Each structure stands twice: as structure tokens, then as C-alpha cells.
């Protein structure tokens, strides 16, 4: 799972952080103009809690999380109730931090996917969608509402929210790449089995991490499409860095949202 905004786990049916133009059936029939697509570097998805969603609403009706307008959000919460109509399924979900309404238009639900008929109250679900506000209240228009793959996903999601918040704070303070300090502050123990926490290798604390980051950043300034993985590997290995360290650093940078894929999954551009 990475938060560059362009890659996502295949257990979400290959969702790739692009905007699938979700609209209501009524809007579809009358729509003549399509919204301009956000620039690639602004398309990102972040994990949030309901509390963060509620606090994101600004006085002018925007939804800003850590100062940014998330293109998509991911939420793991428990269904409190479900209301199904001909055009949409409306869920009220809670995660212990608050209650929020989630609407999933039925024209977006795959008829072959039994999730719409098997979800029930007191089930934990993973929701991916767009955070919106109306009259000061936050809500989510969901592209996907699915049962979590494991109950451990709840714990993992909460920890991801903490991690992303810390990374946003570090980015804001200019201390980019200082994830070693982050890990000390947060105090995680050794990685446990069954929990795929992605903050384990300490790759960001090695000198090579900064080398790789600097290299990609330098090339991103002069190249619209960024730089390919092969070129990064060639340059770094000739400077004495192992292939494994380079790959780890690239994965870490993509996971932190510092770099993102451009023309293909092996071409990267610096995000900031």
C-alpha cells in the first residue's frame, strides 16, 4: 500500500487513485460538462478517522486534512445502520471517533459483487471515497464499501492515520525523511506477525535514502515525466549503493508520498 496516490492494494479491485467520475444517476442524465481533472500531483488518497473528517470542514465549505484537499480518503469503520434506496445505499458508520454518513450510488456497485447484499450493522468495512461537506457537515461519497479483509485492518488503519499525520507534520516542519525519529517517538515495538505495518525497515534512516531522494528530486526539476527506476538503480549502484537499498528507498519514498508514479509504475517524479 502506498500513499503516493497512484498505487493501491489489489484487494480493492485494482483501484488506482484516478477519478472514476462518480456522479448520481440524476446528475449523469443532465451533465454536459465534465469537471477538469486535478493535476497528477494533487491526486492522492489518505487514511482518516471520522474525527478527522468532521474536523476537516472549513468555513468556506472545503474539506482540508492536514492543510490539503485529499482527492480520496480511506476509512475503516463499523456500520451502524444501512438504508438502501433504488439509487443509493446510505450507511451511517462509526469508528469510535465519531459518526459519519457514507453514500454509495448503486450504479457504482458491481452487480456481481455480493457486498451490497451481505453487509450488515456491526460489521467493519473499508470505505474509499471522496470527502465532502454540506452545511458544515462532513460526509463521504463512496466509490467502494467492502468488508475488511481481516479485523486487524482496523488496528492497521488507525496506525496508518497516526503515521500519515506525523509525516505531514514532518513535511511541514521541513524535516523530510526523518522517519527514524518518528519511529522512536511513536514507540512501535518489533513488527508482529499478521500485521503488515509498512514502517519497519528503517530504510529512511540510512544515508542511501537521502541519496536516492536527492537524486530523484534533482531529476524531477528538469524532467516533466520524472526518472525511471532503471536509471536510478544505475546511478546509485555506480555510487556504491546496493540495489536492495535503492529499491527499499524508492518504496519508502512512494509510501510516504514524497514521490509518485508518472507514465508507468517504474517512472517517478518528486512530489514536493
Amino acid at each position, binding site marked *: 500500500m502506498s500513499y503516493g496516490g497512484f498505487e493501491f492494494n489489489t484487494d480493492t479491485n485494482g483501484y488506482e487513485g484516478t477519478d472514476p467520475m462518480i456522479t448520481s444517476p440524476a446528475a449523469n442524465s443532465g451533465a454536459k460538462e465534465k469537471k477538469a481533472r486535478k493535476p497528477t500531483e494533487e491526486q492522492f488518497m489518505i487514511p482518516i478517522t471520522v474525527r478527522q473528517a468532521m474536523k476537516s470542514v472549513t468555513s468556506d465549505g472545503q474539506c482540508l486534512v492536514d492543510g490539503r484537499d485529499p482527492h480520496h480518503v480511506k476509512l475503516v469503520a463499523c456500520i451502524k445502520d444501512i438504508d438502501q434506496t433504488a439509487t443509493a445505499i446510505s450507511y451511517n458508520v462509526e469508528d*469510535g471517533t465519531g459518526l459519519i454518513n457514507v453514500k454509495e450510488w448503486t450504479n457504482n456497485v458491481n452487480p456481481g459483487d455480493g457486498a451490497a447484499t451481505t453487509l450488515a450493522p456491526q*460489521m467493519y468495512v473499508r470505505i474509499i471515497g471522496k470527502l465532502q461537506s454540506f452545511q458544515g457537515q462532513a460526509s463521504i461519497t463512496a466509490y467502494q464499501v467492502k468488508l475488511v479483509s*481481516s*479485523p486487524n485492518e482496523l488496528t492497521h488503519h488507525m496506525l496508518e*492515520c497516526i503515521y500519515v499525520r506525523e509525516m505531514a507534520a514532518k513535511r511541514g516542519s521541513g524535516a523530510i525523511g526523518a522517519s527514524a525519529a518518528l519511529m522512536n517517538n511513536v514507540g512501535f515495538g518489533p513488527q508482529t506477525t499478521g500485521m503488515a505495518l509498512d514502517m519497519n525497515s528503517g530504510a529512511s534512516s540510512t544515508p542511501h535514502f537521502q541519496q536516492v531522494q536527492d537524486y530523484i528530486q534533482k531529476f524531477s526539476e528538469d524532467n516533466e515525466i520524472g526518472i525511471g527506476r532503471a536509471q536510478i538503480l544505475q546511478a546509485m549502484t555506480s555510487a556504491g549503493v546496493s540495489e536492495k537499498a535503492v529499491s527499499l528507498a524508492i518504496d519508502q519514498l512512494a509510501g510516504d508520498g514524497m514521490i509518485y508514479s508518472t507514465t508507468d509504475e517504474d517512472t517517478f517524479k518528486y512530489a514536493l
Partner: protein
Amino acid sequence: MTPTGTEQEQGFYPRLNAAGISGGRFSGMIVSVVGKQISNDGQLLILEDGDGAQMKITSPENSQNTQFIEIVGACAEDSVQHFVTRQLGDEFDMDTYNQMINLQNGKYQELFYQSEFQK
């Protein structure tokens, strides 16, 4: 209404372990506890948290549950009165969950707590 007089918002409930219940801070509030089932005699359900400590759940359901469950209910001085049960399967990582709620209830309350209840 909590003892402090502030109403808990819908969907907000602190996630606690045995130490959190017995601390007294959340007495009178709706809370969530997660644990491994140790026993259930119909009157009292005992759960074991990530630290190995036991939590008492009064008025439990008498239904078939998975090994790990979440109970949402009203926190008393040394127990939780059952409202809702959620199934968490048989392979829940209690250790990591325990670490997570320590972070939630400690340094990162801003992401998880209704502001009136932040310490």
C-alpha cells in the same frame, strides 16, 4: 451525559483496556473494549486484554462469538455493561491493538477524541 456534564457525540467512544476501565476516568461513559473471551456464564463475561489483564462485562449476550470480540457499553468503576458485540475473528493481534489504543489515548488524542474529552 457523562459525569463531567458533557454529552458524548454519536459514534465517539474511547477504546480502553483493563487499565483504562479501572482508572476511573471514563466511568459513566460509553466505551469500547476488545479482548479474548475467557468465560461467559450468562451474567458475567470475562475478556482478556493485550496486557493479559481481565475485564468484566456485565449483562452479556448469550450468542456464539468468535474468540476475539469488541464490546461497546457503559463503563462502570470496574466493569463495562454490555450494549453491542462485534465479532473480531480468531486471529486478532491483541498486542498491536493494545499499543494502538495507548497511542490513541495518549499522544494522538486529537485524531480520535471529541475535543471536550481530550486530556
